[in-house]
């Protein structure tokens, strides 16, 4: 038997955080975009234990301000691409500076200086990542996928898909299907 699973990574992550924090009796409030406010003092031992238990889920406590900001930028972009049924019509630069309350110039500078990628490139990769998921779920046509992700046309989605993966959307789907058959 083979089950196909649909999941929401952001919800799953919040549940894991909640469970682990409660297990160690840490009073907390989960804020948006990967921030947690802790109201009681946490012993070093508990902190280490929390870190270790979260690392198992590939969740890491970030403690440098710049990497924190980069993480928030990434989370905001991912949230924008995944949480909305259709991408918002406002420009991504506007969206980011509104959400993070910082100038877009500052945001792009920090991002480019500290990652191997520009924000624009990161956004393209994330959009194609979402497109891959939607293509594999097989419930929407490519035209519907391109509409959902705010591409002006299917042709534009296909060409960006090809640029990021080197494959056409249909070759991509064929390869994943073959891989799954092979694993059976």
């Amino acid at each position, binding site marked *: 038997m083979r089950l196909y699973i649909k999941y929401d990574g952001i919800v799953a992550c919040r549940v894991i955080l909640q469970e682990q924090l409660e297990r160690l009796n840490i009073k907390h409030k989960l804020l948006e975009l990967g921030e947690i406010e802790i109201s009681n003092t946490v012993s070093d031992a508990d902190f280490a234990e929390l870190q270790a238990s979260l690392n198992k889920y*590939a969740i*890491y406590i970030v403690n440098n301000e710049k*990497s924190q900001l980069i993480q928030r930028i*990434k989370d905001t972009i991912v949230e924008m691409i995944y949480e909305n049924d259709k991408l918002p019509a406002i420009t991504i630069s506007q969206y980011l500076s509104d959400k993070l309350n910082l100038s877009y110039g500052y945001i792009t500078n920090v991002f480019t200086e*500290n*990652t*191997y*990628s520009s924000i624009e490139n*990161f956004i393209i*990769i*994330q959009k194609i*990542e979402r497109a*891959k*998921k939607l293509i*594999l779920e097989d419930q929407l046509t490519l035209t519907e996928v391109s509409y959902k992700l705010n591409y002006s046309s299917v042709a534009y989605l296909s060409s960006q898909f090809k640029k*990021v*993966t*080197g*494959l056409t959307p249909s*070759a*991509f789907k*064929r*390869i*994943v299907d*073959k*891989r799954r058959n*092979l694993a059976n």
Partner: protein
Amino acid sequence: MISHKDSMHILIADDDEDDRTFFSEAMMELKMNNKLTLFNDGKDLMDYLSNPDIIMPHILFLDLNMPYMSGFECLKVIRADVRFKDVSIAIYSTSSSEKDIEETFVEGANIYIKKPNDFAKLKKVIKDVLNINWQFHSSGLNKETFFFSI
């Protein structure tokens, strides 16, 4: 998580000495602070990987046509071993046939590179490949659907 400052650990298996030199010189010129280890053929690489104490590479480049053990055979053996589940595999080949590309992807390769003849192009290709690979490692993207053909 790999941060910008950390080095990436890279392996390449290619039986052509010129291609190996070409590749390592391109890597050196990129100045990305990476550690590169070279292997003369697939068997050489597999012997190294069978040692349980090695530092896991982030990415390995496999030439397809090699004596003793081809890149395709290495790919199958490596993908059958859970120890290497987080390692990206890049096929580095003179062939650009659709069939080779698709077959290696189906068998678990993540990246397919048609060997460029030109040094500047090679540098750009390696840079693009390491960039996209780094994105997949650092941004929690789904490695099962990570394909990049260039």
